């Protein structure tokens, strides 16, 4: 005896919040129109036999959008036992338009008026009992956000469903219209249930073209239609619509009282006047996004990531910073000595490289015994070449002045005697995870290779990715806030003006915006675009926007090559948007995609202060998925990578390799085959090639791979973590090209899966992937070749090719926009003929 209750209402009326409250599932409430595109089901809390179906937000049952078709098909085809109609009390007139149609279906309806609390605050009143009387259905007040009235509404709905009462249609249109409706009802065959006949009759009169799909035999109602149209001198849909609104107005008049306050432009309107102002809109948007990314990536973000990368996943850190300043003081004191040592060793290496190498091997070895070190020092300093060596070293004095200091053997020896301060001795020191795990593994007597897998593989890889979690969380908070308060909807509107110039509509912007969190829902959001060509184009270009997973790559490149500059992150988004716009322009000029974009109509919800709870919840949801991804996909990838990296053919046989033999590993072998492809882009070494490939599984893998590849080599004397190593491997301009390549090329497997599903067509899927990757390659190529000119590193052939590409690109952008000429001519002929 299971009961089905459908949840229906306008977009943004609080349906999803109610659904969550009724079923207990944890879903996110956004403030955008078209939030729910899929049908959602859940079991009513406390009633095991009641299923609640959350229908997509719709304005009416006349199908203009996919959501409306989906909702309508469900209601007519599946016949739920009751409908819980949520109505936004603050704009009840428009909401009732849907309600009247729902009630024509012959299914028991209970109306829940939401946002009653806001109504009260504004001083408006709705008389629910009068409303119920006039409509002919029960009406309850709820506040979905606050949670009031929900249980009563649910209980009433279940009641209604159980009673399965026949529904009395309370509202009626003008007499002549009613007469026609009855006439049409009589014509409808028995394949339509009695209580549904009115609904079908009205739809037939309205000339709804999709209603025919639901009927076995379609009666001819043209006579009736003609009669009405003649009488009212208007077309039937408008007639019916007008009738509805007239009916609604009469109800409103009797049941609602407005306070004087609501006139004169609400707060939201005032904000909109500024935010969508023709001159200020774009700069404001640019400023907002810049601020968001500046705070999360450059300032708070990088501070947090440094702590994570060097501290938690590095050597260690001071708890709450206790001891940091004391340590820093000691370190400052030691600094000059350190400089002297380093300077002297540099000079020594030039003069007597072999002797110096012998010394540094022992000196740098952390496991060396003290006696051995002392002996090594003695041997080194008594060497004749070293004894007579003097050099000058730049040392920063107390007042930051640099002075040249003479360093000879004696000074060197004195400096060596100074104890380098160990941060662990100061304050409260928490050793980094690698240190802890390393100690643990040693203590338990774990074999070297396994320790290697764990420390240099898993911890290094996963740690590199997890290091970005703080940054991501900060970013997610901002984005969640922006979305919840309602600003994002305005952005789509603002961008529409620009997008239209390129043959796209602002609606294509929404998937892009979603894609900046994760590409998968971004691609899926393209469903709201009715125009098939626009949709395909949107699907193809949505992943150009840097998604959450690409953020660590951006941060990594910014940190390793550009000193964490803010412009890197910002430019990544700019490149993404530019890629989308240019793709839009170019593709729109091809025969495949040409055509007018769909007109832009979108409801803008009122601004409101999002609840802390909502914002935090959304931030956590995304943050958690990021972490979970790290623990699963990336974890597995790092294990595989580690094996590939540490096994190979060296010294003529296959086996496990030493650290320095990295280039002989299987991975290097595979990478070397692929690497030459990327040589024209400036990063033709196998490490970068491998990193880019692993990015196909999950974009974070690029960072994880770097973590293993560049952190692994123990050749670095001061244990430089990956940023230092990475920074030394290729030139900055190539690094930027690498970044752009990863941003634009085919997305991760999950996103590719989404593209395949949405395209529903293998050919188009490959076309999309191919387009993205080729574009990425060409752009990265041009960046490197042309950029190299400015760094004084010109490759003639490459430069010429790059310039050719740029010229071709510009041509594709500016060539005249031709509609199919033949069609135009025909129309002209017809016009003249008339």
């Amino acid at each position: 005896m299971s009961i089905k209750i459908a949840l229906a209402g306008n977009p943004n009326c609080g349906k999803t919040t109610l659904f969550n409250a009724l079923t207990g599932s944890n879903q996110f409430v956004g403030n955008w129109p078209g939030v729910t595109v899929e049908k959602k089901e859940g079991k009513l809390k406390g009633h095991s036999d009641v299923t609640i179906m959350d229908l997509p937000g719709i304005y009416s049952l006349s199908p203009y959008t996919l959501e409306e078709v989906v909702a309508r098909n469900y209601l007519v085809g599946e016949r739920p036992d009751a409908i819980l109609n949520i109505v936004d009390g603050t704009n009840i007139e428009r909401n009732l338009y849907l309600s009247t149609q729902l009630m024509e279906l012959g299914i028991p309806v209970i109306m829940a008026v939401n946002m009653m609390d806001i109504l009260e605050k504004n001083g408006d009143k709705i008389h629910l009992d009068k409303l119920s009387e006039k409509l002919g259905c029960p009406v309850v007040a709820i506040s979905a956000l606050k949670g009031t009235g929900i249980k009563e509404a649910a209980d009433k709905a279940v009641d209604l469903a159980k009673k399965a009462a026949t529904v009395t249609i309370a509202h009626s249109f003008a007499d002549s219209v009613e007469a026609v409706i009855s006439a049409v009802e009589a014509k409808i065959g028995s394949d339509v249930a009695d209580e549904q006949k009115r609904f079908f009759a009205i739809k037939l009169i309205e000339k709804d073209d999709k209603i025919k799909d639901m009927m076995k035999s379609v009666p001819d109602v043209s006579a009736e239609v003609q009669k009405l149209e003649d009488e009212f001198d208007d077309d039937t849909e408008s007639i019916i619509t007008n009738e509805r609104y007239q009916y609604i107005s009469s109800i409103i008049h009797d049941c609602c009282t407005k306070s004087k306050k609501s006139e004169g432009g609400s707060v939201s309107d005032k904000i909109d006047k500024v935010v969508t102002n023709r001159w200020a809109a774009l700069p404001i948007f640019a400023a907002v996004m810049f601020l968001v990314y500046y705070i999360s990536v450059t300032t708070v973000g990088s501070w947090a990531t440094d702590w994570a990368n060097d501290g938690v996943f590095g050597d260690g850190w001071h708890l709450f910073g206790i001891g940091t300043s004391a340590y820093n003081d000691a370190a400052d004191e030691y600094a000059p000595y350190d400089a002297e040592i380093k300077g002297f060793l540099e000079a020594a290496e030039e003069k007597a490289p072999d002797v110096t190498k012998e010394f540094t091997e022992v000196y740098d070895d952390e496991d060396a015994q003290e006696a051995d070190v002392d002996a090594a020092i003695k041997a080194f300093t008594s060497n004749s070449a070293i004894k007579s060596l003097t050099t000058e070293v730049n040392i920063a004095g107390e007042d930051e002045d640099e002075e040249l200091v003479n360093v000879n053997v004696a000074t060197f020896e004195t400096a060596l005697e100074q104890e380098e301060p160990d941060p662990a001795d100061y304050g409260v020191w928490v050793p980094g995870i690698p240190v802890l795990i390393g100690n643990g593994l040693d203590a338990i007597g774990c074999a070297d290779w396994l320790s290697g897998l764990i420390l240099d593989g898993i911890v290094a890889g996963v740690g590199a990715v997890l290091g970005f979690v703080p940054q991501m969380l900060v970013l997610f908070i901002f984005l969640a806030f922006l979305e919840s308060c309602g600003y994002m909807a305005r952005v789509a509107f603002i961008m529409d003006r620009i997008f239209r110039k390129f043959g796209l509509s602002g609606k294509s912007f929404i998937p892009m915006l979603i894609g900046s969190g994760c590409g998968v829902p971004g691609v899926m959001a393209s469903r709201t675009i009715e125009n098939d060509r626009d949709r395909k184009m949107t699907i193809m270009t949505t992943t150009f926007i840097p998604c959450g997973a690409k953020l660590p790559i951006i941060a990594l490149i910014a940190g390793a090559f550009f000193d964490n500059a803010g412009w890197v992150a910002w430019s990544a988004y700019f490149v993404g948007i530019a890629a989308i716009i240019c793709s839009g322009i170019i593709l729109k000029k091809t025969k495949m995609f040409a055509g007018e974009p769909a007109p832009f109509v979108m409801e803008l919800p009122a601004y409101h202060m999002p609840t802390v709870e909502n914002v935090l919840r959304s931030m956590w949801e995304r943050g958690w998925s990021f972490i979970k991804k790290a623990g699963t996909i990336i974890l597995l990838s790092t294990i595989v990578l580690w094996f590939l990296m540490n096994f190979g053919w060296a010294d003529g046989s296959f086996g496990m390799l030493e650290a320095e033999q990295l280039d002989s590993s299987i991975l290097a072998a595979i990478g070397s085959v692929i690497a030459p492809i990327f040589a024209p882009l400036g990063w033709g070494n196998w490490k970068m090639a491998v990193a880019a490939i692993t990015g196909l599984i999950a974009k974070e893998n690029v960072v994880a791979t770097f973590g293993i590849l560049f952190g692994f080599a123990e050749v670095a004397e001061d244990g430089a973590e990956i940023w230092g190593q990475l920074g030394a491997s290729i030139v900055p301009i190539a690094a930027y090209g690498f970044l752009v390549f990863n941003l634009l090329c085919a997305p991760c497997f999950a996103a590719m899966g989404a593209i395949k599903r949405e395209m529903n067509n293998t050919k188009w899927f490959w076309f999309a992937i191919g387009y993205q990757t080729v574009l990425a390659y060409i752009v990265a190529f041009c960046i490197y070749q042309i950029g190299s000119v400015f760094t004084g590193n010109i490759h003639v052939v490459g430069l010429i090719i790059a310039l050719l590409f740029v010229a071709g690109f510009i041509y594709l952008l500016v060539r005249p926009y031709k509609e199919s000429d033949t069609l135009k001519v025909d129309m002209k002929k017809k016009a003249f003929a008339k």
Partner: protein
Amino acid sequence: MGTVIVGIIVLAIAGGAAYSLHRDKKNGKSQCGGDCSRCGGHCH
């Protein structure tokens, strides 16, 4: 001995990860936050 213990732990974690991925695939996983069926189409 220590190696064996640690090795088993690592295998267990890796296995858990693989299993979790497989299960997600069945639910129509998405790398964004939840399963796609309840995704509002807005993630960001």
